[in-house]
């Protein structure tokens, strides 16, 4: 049984077909990549999985459970977390609190406990805070813990986003263009990081990327989208030589 099972996923924005008949069976522990030109519908696929949009047609099953119709926070609490193409940190909040916010669904104390600041809420919160510091250490961010997220350099902000996503305890991590705006050195470090957290946290990873270098190196399996349709899939070698992929990216005429 696949961890994430998507069948015939289709989405229209008005008359515009953004995603058409997208299928995927993602096994636990896999790392696969989704590539395609701008506007191919890649981020829409992520938005459909995470519940931001409700699909026009098709089914999404995670761990055997149907996800269609659930609220985004419910999907996130079930173990699918994501980062965003353009960084979406909580800017006027400390880096530590960016991570602590993501513990929301794991809080056991009730709302009433919160209003009266009951001792068990305080101790639970302390434990969560320690956990947050631990995550920040893994990402080498502990020295920024009390800094406002918006004051961090771009690369660090990207790492905070991944740390924050991991705080939700995901089984499946969706990374939307993690290497966007990074230089080659930073991309190398990012690749190491992705591999490391994948092992350390036992993650399944699904990533969208424009940087071919990154996708080709770390993904065993790649899907290619263009105009909402899946035009190719396979190993990096197969993708590199696939004429339809070349056409989509370079606009060559293929007879």
């Amino acid at each position, binding site marked *: 049984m696949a961890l994430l099972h998507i069948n015939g996923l289709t989405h229209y924005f008005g008359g515009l077909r953004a995603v058409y008949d997208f299928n995927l069976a993602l096994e636990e522990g896999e790392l696969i990549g989704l590539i395609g030109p701008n506007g191919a519908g890649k981020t829409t696929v992520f938005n459909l999985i995470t519940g931001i949009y409700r699909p026009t047609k098709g089914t999404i099953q995670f761990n055997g459970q149907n996800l269609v119709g659930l*609220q*985004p926070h419910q999907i996130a609490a079930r173990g699918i977390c*994501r980062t965003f193409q353009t960084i979406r940190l909580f800017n006027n909040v400390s880096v530590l609190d960016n991570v602590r*916010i993501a513990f929301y*669904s794991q809080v056991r*104390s009730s709302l009433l*406990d*919160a209003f009266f600041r009951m001792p068990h809420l305080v101790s639970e919160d302390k434990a969560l805070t320690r956990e947050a510091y631990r995550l920040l250490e893994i990402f080498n961010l502990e020295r920024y813990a*009390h800094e406002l997220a918006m004051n961090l350099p771009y690369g660090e902000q990207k790492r905070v986003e991944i740390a924050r996503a991991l705080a939700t305890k995901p089984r499946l991590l969706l990374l939307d263009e993690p290497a966007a705006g990074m230089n080659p050195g930073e991309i190398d470090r990012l690749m190491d990081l992705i591999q490391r957290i994948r092992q350390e946290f036992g993650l399944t990873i699904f990533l969208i990327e424009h940087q071919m270098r990154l996708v080709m190196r770390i993904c065993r399996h790649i899907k290619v989208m263009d105009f909402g349709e899946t035009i190719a899939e396979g190993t990096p070698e197969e993708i590199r030589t696939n004429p339809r992929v070349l056409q989509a990216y370079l606009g060559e005429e293929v007879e």
Partner: protein
Amino acid sequence: MAQWQKMRSHLSAIPVLAYLLGFGIASAIELFIGYPVASLLGLPTMPTLFGIILVQQSLALLPSAIAYDLLIYLVPTYIAARLLTPLVQKLLQKVSSQRLMLVYVLALFLVALLWGGFHEYRTMILCLMGINFILCISLNLVNGYMGEFSVGHAGFMGVGAYIASILTVWVFPRSLGHLVFPLALLAGGAGAAIAGLLVAIPSFKIRGDYLAIITLATNFIIKNGIENIERIGGSRGFMGMAKLTNVPWVFFWSVLTLVLIRNFVLSPYGRGVIAIREDEIAAEAMTVNTRRMKIIAFCTSSFFAGIAGGLFAHLLLYINPSTFTLLKSTECLVMVYLGGMASISGSLVGAATFTILLEMLRPLEVWKWVLIPLLLLVMLLRRHTGLMGFREFQFLIPREEAEVYGSTSH
């Protein structure tokens, strides 16, 4: 310049608590020698609000009023604060940070009673200050912490005022007075919280300007609704309440509001509310149940506005629908943005400053509504987060969060 710096560092070395107690001692002294000193200085009566009212009557009294403030308040406060400093510092070291807030609360209560407990006008000012604080901090929860723009806070205040008044006048036996007063206030708060749902539900789908329009509409619906219910007086208003609001009650409800809202915003749930302000989509993606938190925040906010309304009604003993119009809502907004966004300390500062400002500018009549927005404008241009925006006084923050709060302020 150097001397100025020296004086500043000298003055800031004295703990806030010592100043507070010093002011209490000064107020106690005033009780005994206030009248003689005032007549010696040639003032017609004892200054009730630091001479502000007297100066409004005749500008010639300004030097005497200043002399009075120096003699009665500033000098004794300073001397007492200096003398108390070693004692207070010892106390601050001994008391755990959890109890520290209690110490401040007790000291503040004592000072409030000593300064204002024996003058009708001062009692009024203190009560208004407390009511304004409850309004300010509750609105701050929505506008500051959650980042929505509610402009109809007075509507919820009105709901609370009417429900509480109807209960104490018609339902509860008058002889029970203070015993049932909390019940009446809670019922008013609950009614206002239900009205808060009216705003929470559209907030699921809309944000920003559109939500502001909806809160505006809610304010009008409530005001015009009450106006059209003849049974409760319609536009003529409602009266017959006993004077139940006094300094101890206002103080109790202010502290309760402060503690509950502080606890909430410092909890994991409160962080969820802050996440909504920062980025709603990201908040959802990070498992925050934004719908639930919006309902909680809007209802809590309007609940306390309702409590404030009940206190207000039993202070002025007369309410009518036009008390709870957009103008009153604007007053709440001014307090929030003056004091500081997303700050409990800011709500304290904002409410206190605003209440006194309103008294100071009373002779200007309608012109004060030109001056106050102007002040706000200058304030927002110079320091757009307000006096204490995103910052807190240390004593308001529990120890385990102190580290986090100490350095995120900017």
